[in-house]
């Protein structure tokens, strides 16, 4: 079979493109699609979630799966508000960290939609850390494997409980559940509240939704 120079170039471009963007569609999930909502209006920035996460998942000091980032004070004393932003894994439907992992350590659990890491398969190349647009991955100083929030998949969820952060929140600012179940609280909240997600323009389809707090003057 003869291949013209033109056909060869077209074919090789297609292959190169597919190689550069290996995941361009959402992975299929058959069972649950675990999703979280962070209600920034209800959050008080106490960081009880951060402590609970560290304790339940035995996260070593110096690294963290979850951070609550507090804004600068908005307003003048005594009329001051803050904004709180949850920084943790977004459990993307199109996770770049899984796409770049050369050893198959980063994976997406088809039963829950949770993006997780198998520490035994991780070679510590840190491609995932570089690829994650949300900058939520780190190398665990004990296991030397990449790690991040797994919605407590191996701890609380395995024991039939809610993720540690959700359990510990004193103001119910974290809502967790199955987005594939239209009757779940998380589905209801997303359906009825104005939510936003970050960096959706990258096509990652993140599954951490947020309810924005007003930017101040909420006492009027």
């Amino acid at each position, binding site marked *: 079979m003869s291949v013209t120079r033109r056909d060869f170039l077209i074919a090789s471009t297609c292959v190169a493109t597919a190689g550069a963007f290996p995941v361009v569609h959402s992975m299929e999930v058959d069972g649950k699609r675990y999703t979280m909502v962070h209600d920034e209006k209800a959050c008080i920035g106490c960081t009880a979630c951060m402590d609970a996460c560290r304790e339940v998942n035995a996260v070593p000091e110096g690294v963290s799966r979850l951070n609550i980032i507090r804004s600068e004070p908005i307003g003048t004393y005594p009329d001051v*508000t*803050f904004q709180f932003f949850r920084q943790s894994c977004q459990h993307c439907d199109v996770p770049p960290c899984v796409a770049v992992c050369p050893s198959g350590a980063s994976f997406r659990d088809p039963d829950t939609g949770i993006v997780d890491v198998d520490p035994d398969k991780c070679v510590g190349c840190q491609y995932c850390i570089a690829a994650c647009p949300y900058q939520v991955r780190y190398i665990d100083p004990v296991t030397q494997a990449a790690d991040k929030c797994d919605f407590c998949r191996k701890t609380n969820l395995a024991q039939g409980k809610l993720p540690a952060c959700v359990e510990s929140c004193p103001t119910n600012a974290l809502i967790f559940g199955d987005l594939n179940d239209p009757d779940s609280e998380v589905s209801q909240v997303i359906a009825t509240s104005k939510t936003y997600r970050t960096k959706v323009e990258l096509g990652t389809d993140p599954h951490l939704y947020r309810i924005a707090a007003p930017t101040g003057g909420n006492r009027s």
Partner: protein
Amino acid sequence: MNKRIYFSSIAFLATVLRIALAVLALSWVSSQAAAAGQTIDPENCIGCHEETPVLGVHSGALFGATNRVATCADCHGWVTDLGQHETDGADMVRFDSAAAVLEPRTLTPLSLGVSTIATQNQTCLQCHSGKTLGALHWTHDAHGFELACSTCHQLHPKNDPVRGLSNASTIKLCVDCHSAQTRNGEGVRP
């Protein structure tokens, strides 16, 4: 008479006269103060309130407005009517967390004899600026309206219970109060 002795006698007489005038003026001022009801020297408060000496960091602290050691009256106000004061003490600024616990929305104390959050905090803000407090801990900013300083701080005991709290204990404090709010169906902010 020697001229020098003559002048020194004059000076002596003048001094005596000045002292006498000063004493007269002082007694007049104190009688005026008595008329205004401000007869209770803060030094005397402890005569009745012997159970509440200030032992914390405010003991011996300078009060900015007077540049002398703070007295009871600087924070709690002057007694204007001793009779009433002895009956109910309603004329004083009373620092009590009940103000915050009972009425976070209306800023009106539901507990009898407890000053409003605004009244309590205004006393503290005479010396402590909101800006400085915010820099010390962000929760000062977050609770400017909702809490009295006395909800967390105590100045009379030797140790202020919230000073030197560990991070875990601080978080527990947040969680305890805000869990109760959530249970009671109250919003985070009034």
